[in-house]
């Protein structure tokens, strides 16, 4: 265990090494490490954010889907209502048309029947006149007896 000038030499070397390390080794390495740590932290934060965004988007999408479904259901409901309404309306219209057509038919039939009646009456009057002429074998003044004939026609 000889203590000698080696100690001075080693002390000098030690000081030089520490100063060199402090000036040229530690700062750049630590800087690189810290910069990388910051980058990684940013990346992690960004991925966290993205995950949250994704979750939100999914929630939104689900909500929108639900809303769309509800809308579709209500549209279908409305359409069904409208459909039955239309059908009812159509049925009503058809019913009205039917009654109208029936009424018209009835009216026509009535007029025709009246006409026929009228014609028949005329013809009966003529026949009666002819029959009476034959019976009387003489001409009857149609004009003079028209009141009698009219009475007859009215009785038919």
């Amino acid at each position, binding site marked *: *265990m*000889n*203590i*000698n*000038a*080696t*100690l*001075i*030499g*080693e*002390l000098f*070397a*030690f*000081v030089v*090494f*520490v100063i*060199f*390390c*402090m000036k*040229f*080794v*530690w*700062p*750049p*390495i*630590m*800087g*690189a*490490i810290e*910069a*990388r740590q910051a*980058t990684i932290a940013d990346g992690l934060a960004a991925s966290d954010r993205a995950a949250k965004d994704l979750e939100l988007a999914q929630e939104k999408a689900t909500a929108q889907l639900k809303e769309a479904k509800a809308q579709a259901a209500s549209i279908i409901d409305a359409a069904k209502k409208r459909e039955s309404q239309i059908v009812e309306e159509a049925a009503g219209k058809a019913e009205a048309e039917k009654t109208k057509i029936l009424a018209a038919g009835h009216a026509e039939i009535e007029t025709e029947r009246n006409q026929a009646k009228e014609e028949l009456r005329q013809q009966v009057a003529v026949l009666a006149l002819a029959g009476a002429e034959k019976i009387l074998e003489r001409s009857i003044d149609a004009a003079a007896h028209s009141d009698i004939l009219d009475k007859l026609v009215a009785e038919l």
Partner: protein
Amino acid sequence: MFNNGYAVINTLFFETLIFLNFNHWEHNMSSAAELTSQEYITHHLTNLTVGEGFWTFNVDTLGWSVFLGLLFLTIFRSVAKKATTGVPGKLQCAVEMIVEFVDDSVKGTFHGKNDLIAPLALTVFVWILLMNMMDWVPVDILPWIISLVSGIEMSHIYMKPVPTTDPNLTFALAGGVFFLIIYYSIKVKGIGGFIKELTTQPFGHWSLYPVNFILEVVTLLARPLALSLRLFGNLYAGELIFLLIATLGLYQLPVHFIWAAFHLLVIPLQAFIFMMLTIVYLSLAHEDH
């Protein structure tokens, strides 16, 4: 001859070298006197020196420590220059792992703001780790290589390649740390504050201030002493055991392996302890009571 023959290896990995070395030793036997175990060990614990008296330089300690320090700084500096904030390469990953490990240790203990402590801890840790790792170099391989290259007999070659087994180095490191302890104590607390800290505790009464002062100075001085002697003692003892094992002849192979494996624990642990205590002492120096 197996009892005290030179053995080249510390570990099984150098099995072949042992035979080379035995041959070498047998060649030398004719000319050189056979070394006893004690002489062998003493020989291996002697530094290669230049100079006289105090102005002796342990060339092997200085050379290896500076070489290993430069190795550390070269590797780390090359990474620092190319350091990318993107995807790092494998070397950068390894270096960053060490840097982060040191940084975590510093941040866990020292809570002030100081740009020196972290780089200091890094230098101390890696440098001591590298120097301790020289313990794994087989005890005779370096002298053997030098002897092959230079042609000098191995018994005349002195080479102690583990710088941390030299108290000069451990005292220099602890001395540097001690200087910083004093420097920061005064810088943070002021001279008055520092003296107050040394005198007014642990006993509160003024009549006991001299006792306090003696206690505190002893505590203060014990720190660098403990720091340096712990490192020196552990590594010196480890090296000594390696040398003892090397005198066992062929039986040394498994024993060396076990001892080297045990040093997987000792080597990083001692480096870590030195670093940790450096941080702790400096953070104590920053604390204002």
